[in-house]
């Protein structure tokens, strides 16, 4: 019973948005355009969230990459009327079935992290992108909700490869595209249920915290605050 999770070290993150770009490429998320941006309808699975601390002139700013927090108790799943969003008990990943979603957007409103996205229009994929579409991920159509899935198609692939060789999945064989891309290794991914994994050790660091912890959603994305300490 794996508990896939992520730790993002804000000491290392330069807010370069490489993760965002990698995510768009990997998951066939169409690029935004000025019109969609002005309408506040761009689809982004990872959002760069600015956080300000203290008053001027002592202001400290950090930027957090925020994706689906992969809650252990997801508020979005409770409210879905048709089971289009589901929780994988064996992996701890919150998935989304585009062919089941009726587009009521109850989940997008119930999510306290506002990380769920809706397809207001049919996807506008530029011609130059069409060659680069990832065949492992379905292209979404208008009227359904989507969100970060921790690249679970990569998990399926890695697990199949391991099964073919008749062995267990090895650490590092399954990582999402954002983690793979991060140039400063600020993002660490792995099994939180394994106490010896790097991600599990980092999640117990004194700098670690999760977003909106008091809501009891138990996210599996940890942030290591800026500062000294392990």
């Amino acid at each position, binding site marked *: 019973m794996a508990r896939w999770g992520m730790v993002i070290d804000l000491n290392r993150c330069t807010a370069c948005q490489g993760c965002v770009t990698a995510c768009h490429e990997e998951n066939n998320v169409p690029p935004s355009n000025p019109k969609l941006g002005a309408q506040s309808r761009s689809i982004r699975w990872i959002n760069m969230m600015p956080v300000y601390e203290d008053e001027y002139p002592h202001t400290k700013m950090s930027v957090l990459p925020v994706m689906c927090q992969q809650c252990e108790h997801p508020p979005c799943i409770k409210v879905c009327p*048709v*089971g289009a969003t589901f929780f994988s008990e064996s992996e701890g990943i919150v998935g989304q079935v585009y062919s089941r979603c*009726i587009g009521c957007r109850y989940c997008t409103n119930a999510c*306290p992290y506002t990380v769920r996205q809706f397809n207001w*229009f049919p996807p506008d994929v530029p011609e130059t992108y069409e060659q680069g579409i990832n065949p492992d991920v379905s292209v979404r159509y*208008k009227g359904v909700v989507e969100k970060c899935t921790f690249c679970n198609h990569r998990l399926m692939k890695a697990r199949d490869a391991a099964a073919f060789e008749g062995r267990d999945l090895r650490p590092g064989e399954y990582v999402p595209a954002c983690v793979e891309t991060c140039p400063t290794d600020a993002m660490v991914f792995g099994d939180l249920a394994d106490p010896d994994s790097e991600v599990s050790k980092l999640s117990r660091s004194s700098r670690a915290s999760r*977003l909106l912890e008091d809501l009891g959603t138990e996210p599996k994305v940890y942030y290591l605050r800026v500062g000294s300490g392990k």
Partner: protein
Amino acid sequence: MSHSHNRRMPKPTDPLGPDWALVRPTVESDSRFWIVVACLLAGVSLGVSAYVYQVRTGLGVTGMNRPVYWGMYIINFVFFIGISHAGTLISAILRLAGAEWRRAITRSAEVITVMVIVFGVGNVIFDLGRPDRLLYVLKHGRLQSPLLWDVCSISVYLCCSTIYLYLPLIPDIAILRDQTNKRKWLYRMLALGWQGTERQYERLEKAMGFMMVLVIPVAVSVHTVVSFVFAMTVQPMWHAAIFGPYFVVGAIFSGIAALIIAMAIIRWAYHLEGYLKNIHFDYLGQLLLVMTLLWFYFTFSEYLTTWYGGEPVQLTVWWAKINGEYSGYFWTMVVCCFIVPMAILSRSKTRTVAGTVVVSIFITIGMWLERFIIVIPTIANPRLPIDRGLYHPTWVEWSMLVGCFSFFILLYVLFTRFFPIVSIWEIQEGRMNAKQDMLDRIDAYKVESPEPEADSGALAAALPAGGGGRQ
């Protein structure tokens, strides 16, 4: 109900006399009717074309965005379901309480309920990104989602209120069958062989009695469950236990307002001043005054609690309503739902037909704004500072609202052309029996005076000379 005196019940063949005025709209129509129908059809086609455009292009043609994922359709859903509480609930309560003045108004209230529910449900369908998958809600429905509670509760309500509209309609349909020449086949079929026998009345009263008791908890559940769609999430100013009763009160409030407007139009269009009298508007106005105060009480409790607690995420939404982007909507709502109704309804001099209609129009607008103020500011100000949204409906959404209103009024007008909008047999029954029923009732709870001849000796001894009492 038990009746001591000999009651006579109206038969479908009884001569109608002046009550023919109630049948007249079903047999005669004038050019005015066709003009109204044409205007309403234009409104409907505007809505239909807007919807076709939306389905083809995507929900992006609305003003919704990220994070304001719900907009006018969900507002209309709550609003129309609220209006639907006019009917059945009010008519059931008045019937149950044996309020004699109900006889002329129950039918027009019940019709509002049945017709308007359809548009409440319709707005949820307009809101779906994939309306073609609507039936997934039945096929793959998960009962843990509050939306499924809505589906269950609203479909039961629609069934119950349709039956509750139909049952008291049967004797009237029989009148149309026996005394008019139009659409005979339809009335023959719907009258179910009604002859007005004692046995038939006994069964009808039993069935109506059962339905009016059943429909009250169902109606309360409907708007409670509608509020649960919001209250079950953890979002600021949605996640509140007050929402259930607050929504029910708001629903009855807007329902009575809609009923008053409908009654005034019926009275004017069909010249029914002798049936829908000034006193009906006065009584409904008093009921509306009570609901105004209740609405204020709930609103005040909600806003004071949120402000006093002072949680930052709650306060962000609170200030957006009171003094922020949505303050125009908020204060207009307060004027429409409280200040104007209080000013006009609290004085009997202004509680006239015109006065109550003006107030009702204000309340209808105010309650629509209340739904806006409940839905939008919360989702426009989410907890995390990733997105902040503003919401302005587009022409597509306004057209759909016009379409819904037009279609609703059209169905209502058509109903009045097929069936009497004031219950004929209940009016006749009232004329035959109400006075005696009232006297019987007064007799039943009258305190008997001691009978002097029973023990006159002892009584005389106990009393001082001169018979006692004040002189």
